[in-house]
């Protein structure tokens, strides 16, 4: 059977993620340690796990409303109001998804027509571009520079705007750079968005991991709430990656469209996970503080150590990644990571996996124990000295 001609062209041409390739090599080797994960290292707090078990034990295992359990949507909206001062109507402006990933998918599919342009500031999380392309949109990359703290600047955004621009995707705090945007940073670009009538897809999954400053959503800027589609979820804030619970907050006119796709492809997010998420949003504020504190300490530690061993690293203000430049080694990020894995059994993610602007950098996750981070630093130092 010739499968080749039976496969969708777009999917066939879709490049596998740059992370995947390294994962495949790393998993065949013995004694590999990795600073390559994109998930917290805490076990989900027990009261949240217990809520999922209780739901299953009591047979709360039927479909829920397409939008998700009303109680969960209420808790999500309470949470956004309490934490970020943004009010959404739980009955009409909130949709519970299977992780932030589903949210990205249905939002893009719901808004894009063939040829629509989506502006993507890079280095960026790896899933946006392929999903834009699957939805027949065109990705227009704009650069976020290290010297600007990996923020999106007005001049860069302006260069990318065209009559075909439909949306801008932002992700602050950022995977992979750890960069954040503050209120003033958003103010700078607000007018461009308003004038050009574009949607902003704001993936705020790392919002709770904003260090020393308060997370600001672009929806906090007066006039921009209606342009903004907030994507968030429980994975990073509560260490609930495997539960797969995310959500969208947006104008009712948009949520109705997202829900059309969601109802046919997903029906509803996993019921027991939704009950766990209720417990998290209701009683999990203390858990967030604990994890936040621990991540912040490890961020301080790893930045100090990376600078000590000669990798110039700026102090990121969010997420749990550092994104040091490896340009001094004269290697591409792929070469660097391959050689590091080969010689020292240490797996990092090459910056090029996050778009062409990621070239010359590596992503290092510090969602690891101090012992693991120390061992990784030792190996990395030995590697750098051998060059």
């Amino acid at each position: 059977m010739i499968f080749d001609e039976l496969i969708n062209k777009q999917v066939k041409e879709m490049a596998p993620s740059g992370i995947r390739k390294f994962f495949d090599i790393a998993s065949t080797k013995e004694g590999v340690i990795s600073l390559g994960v994109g998930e917290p290292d805490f076990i989900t707090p027990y009261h949240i796990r217990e809520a999922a078990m209780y739901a299953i034990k009591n047979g709360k295992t039927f479909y829920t409303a397409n939008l998700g359990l009303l109680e969960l949507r209420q808790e999500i909206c309470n949470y956004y109001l309490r934490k970020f001062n943004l009010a959404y109507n739980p009955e009409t402006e909130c949709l519970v998804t299977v992780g932030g990933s589903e949210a990205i998918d249905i939002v893009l599919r719901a808004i894009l027509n063939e040829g629509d342009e989506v502006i993507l500031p890079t280095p960026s999380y790896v899933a946006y571009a392929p999903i834009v392309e699957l939805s027949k949109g065109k990705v227009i990359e704009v650069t976020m520079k290290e010297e600007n703290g990996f923020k999106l600047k007005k001049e860069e955004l302006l260069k990318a705007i065209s009559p075909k621009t439909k949306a801008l995707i932002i992700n602050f705090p950022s995977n992979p750079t750890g960069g954040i945007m503050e209120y003033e940073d958003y103010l700078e670009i607000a007018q461009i968005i308003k004038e050009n009538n574009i949607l902003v897809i704001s993936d705020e999954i790392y919002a709770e991991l904003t260090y020393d400053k308060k997370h600001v959503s672009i929806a906090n800027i007066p006039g921009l709430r209606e342009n903004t589609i907030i994507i968030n979820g429980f994975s990073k804030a509560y260490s609930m990656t495997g539960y797969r619970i995310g959500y969208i907050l947006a104008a009712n006119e948009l949520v109705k469209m997202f829900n059309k796709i969601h109802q046919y492809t997903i029906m509803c997010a996993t019921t027991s996970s939704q009950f766990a998420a209720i417990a998290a949003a209701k009683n999990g504020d203390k858990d967030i503080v604990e994890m936040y504190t621990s991540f912040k300490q490890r961020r301080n530690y790893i930045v100090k150590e990376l600078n000590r061993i000669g990798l110039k690293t700026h102090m990121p203000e969010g997420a749990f990644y550092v994104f040091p430049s490896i340009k001094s080694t004269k290697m591409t990020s792929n070469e660097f990571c391959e050689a590091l894995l080969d010689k020292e059994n240490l797996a990092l993610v090459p910056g090029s996996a996050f778009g062409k602007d990621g070239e010359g950098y590596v992503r290092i996750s510090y969602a690891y124990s101090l012992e693991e981070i120390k061992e990784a630093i030792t190996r990395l130092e030995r590697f750098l000295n051998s060059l």
Partner: protein
Amino acid sequence: MLKEMLSLLEKNARIEVSDLAALLNTDEETINNKIKECEDNNVIAGYHTIINWDNANTETVKAMIAVSSTAERDTGYDHIAEIIANYPEVDSLYLVSGKTEFILIINGSTMREIANFIAHRLAPIEGVISTETMFILKEYKIMGAIMDKDNNKAERLLMSL
């Protein structure tokens, strides 16, 4: 920062000063000074190791004793508490609300040793009315540490998005 430093030390008394400094984004001298200050002010009252004696194949006996006592006119319970606390066999001592006044935890190498302590030391103290001894049969969790660790820890992927 002080609270963060104390929490880190509470979880791991053996943490290196250099690690504390890096984690808290400060220098070693600052940490050393802070620790010294805490020790001097009895904010840090001591450093202990949590030992699972069962796994060390060493017989120990531990008991929790509830003690009823009268209070004294001038010192309340403090004087009697001081007498009890002075015995090295007494590991921990708490004044509590409820049916009895004190809860104490006592360590010994045999049951007889503990029985002797109660009969000859604790019960005769002036003001002690009665004691109720609960021998500890099994230790599950001490100061946040689970004794029988489940090695079936869930594994994360080597790399993820």
